[in-house]
Structure formats: C-alpha cells, structure tokens
C-alpha cells in the first residue's frame, strides 16, 4: 500500500495539469487518509497487545536498531499522511474520499504552511523509503542469513504458537 502510494504520489506530482492529474491526486489523498486510519488502529493495537520477544541471539545494538527503526517507521507512517492532509487543507482544496465521503480540512488556507508541509511530506518520502529498505533488508537477512523466525512470525497465527513455546 505504501509502495503503491510512493508511485502514485510521484506520478501525480509530475503529471501535466489535467483532469487525470486531479483524479490521480484524489486517489492518492483517499488512500493516504485510509493509511492514516489503519496506522492509528495498528498503533493502538500494538500498544495494547504484547509483541513477541526478539530472538535471544540478537545483540544489543541489533535490538536497539530494530526498536528505533520500528518507532521511526510508525512516526513516519503517521506524519506522512498527516502532512499530506495539511498540504491539501492549506492549499484549500476540498477532498471527497474516493469521490464519495466529504473529508474536512485540518488547517486553514495558508500558502506558507502549504510549502512547509510539502517539505515535510517529500523529506519523509525519502526517510520512509530508506527505513523500508532497512526493514525489508533486515527481515530478509534474519530469514536467510540468521535463519530465525523473525520473518515467518509476521504471518497470522504464528505469534500464538511462538508465545506458547515461550511460556
């Protein structure tokens, strides 16, 4: 979903001004708000649910890096759609999610604010992209090099089994 948004956002920004450009942006904005809602739900879930412990073989710096990159990814996943919402609001464009649901503006019309939010949005694009490369790379490294359960335990149903083993 996030990778799709990278592509969609990139195309929409560079597309020549046309009805198609507006529609690309409507999709980009609609999916962005959807991600925001999903991420908020996910964070609430993560905070109320136990996360399985990291494998014992992981060294301290690896643990710290894993925690830091996860925190940063969650932050980026919240601020990314939020800053997009601010851009749209400050630019004073109306938004109807998927052409159906009227979505309110979060900020007043303000060109300076729009420019700042755009800077945040595009900077986070690169940061989140880098974090995702790190995240996916680390997951593959755990699976193929370390040969531990990190990747497979992300699949549904495996957490319970892992917890049972740990108990």
């Amino acid at each position, binding site marked *: 979903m996030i990778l799709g948004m990278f592509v969609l956002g990139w195309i929409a920004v560079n597309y020549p*001004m*046309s*009805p*198609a450009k*507006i*529609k690309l942006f*409507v999709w980009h904005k609609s999916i962005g708000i959807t991600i925001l809602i999903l991420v908020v739900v996910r964070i609430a879930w993560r905070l109320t649910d136990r996360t399985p412990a990291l494998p014992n073989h992981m060294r301290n710096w690896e643990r710290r890096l894993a925690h830091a990159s996860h925190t940063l990814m969650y932050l980026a996943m919240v601020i990314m759609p939020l800053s997009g919402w601010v851009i749209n609001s400050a*630019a*004073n*464009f*109306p*938004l*109807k999610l998927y*052409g159906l649901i*009227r979505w309110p503006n979060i900020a007043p*019309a303000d*060109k300076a604010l*729009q420019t700042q939010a755009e800077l945040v949005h595009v900077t986070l694009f690169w940061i989140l992209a880098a974090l995702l490369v790190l995240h996916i790379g680390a997951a593959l490294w755990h699976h193929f090099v370390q040969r531990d359960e990190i990747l497979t335990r992300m699949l549904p149903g495996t957490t319970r089994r892992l917890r049972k083993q740990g108990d």
Partner: protein
Amino acid sequence: MYLTRAATVLICSVLSAAAAATEWIVDNDRSRLGFIATYDGVGFDTRFERFDTRIRFDPQQLENGLFDVVVDIASVNSDSADRDAGMLDLEWFDAEKFPQARFVSTGFRQTGAGAFEASGRLTVKGITRSIALPFTWNDAGNGARLKGKTLLQRTDFKIGTGEWATDPIIGFEVAVVVDLHLNIKN
C-alpha cells in the same frame, strides 16, 4: 435676455437630473462579486478583488437603469494560491489575452416586491453572451444593497478547454454571485 437664457439652462438641467436615475458607487470593502464553482463535486467560493462599476438604478425608473461592470480577471481569489494561478492559464480564463470580463445591462424588469431582473451582455474570454441576472434591491436611504445570482455554463465561454471541456471534475455549472453595498454618488 441673459436672465431668460440662464433660467432655461437651469430648468433644463433640473429636468435632466430628474430624468436620470440615481448613480451609485460600490463600497468595495463590504461588497462581493465572484462565483461558486465545483471541484470534484465540492463547491468553492471565488471573488474578484478588483472590479469597476457604473451603476445607475432607481426602482421607479427602470428604463433609465444601467449596470456596467468591468472585472479584473487576474484579481480572482479563491483562498488558494495554486488554484488562483491555475485559473489564469490559457485553458481557463487566459487572463493574459483576456484581462477583463464585462457585463453591460440592456434592460430591467420587475419580477416581485424588491425583486428585479437585469438583462445584459456578458463578455468573458472574448465571448459575449446574453444573460439574465435576477437580483433583489434593498433601498435604505442613502445606501442600497444589491444581491443577485445567476447560473452559467463555463463551457459557453470556453472556460476550461481541451479535456476540461468534457470532463466534469471541475463542474460545468458556475454560479455568479453578486452582493454589492452601494452608496449614492454625489
């Protein structure tokens, strides 16, 4: 002889003053002239910051009435810098080539108590069309308030060419909205 001529001039000027309907000037700070358009089905308000008017109107002398309004297209403001700039583009108002829009009334008729309709010629982007502008007129001593609204099809004036001419993402129907606070011109 001299006195007679003076008296004649005086009488004539009094008569012509009576014949001309009242002239009004717009209180720009309190007035609004603009339009409501739609973006993806959601309306957005737009106003022109600069417009010149010559308004002569007296509900008792409709035959002497005149609305002549010249709008500075580049002064369009919809509280969105990007959209405002976009509206001046070639495909939309083409403000560089057509910097002004103009409405000149051709006649008035009363449609109800305090309600009137101005017929006239509206020129936008070099295209002139006959339109009707229904409005209400509230006289308050030295001031008056004119409120009117009329629906136009943007494509009638080639506003939005190319793909925009057939794609309804920017709605075809546009409501021109006029709310003028007027003072008697001395």
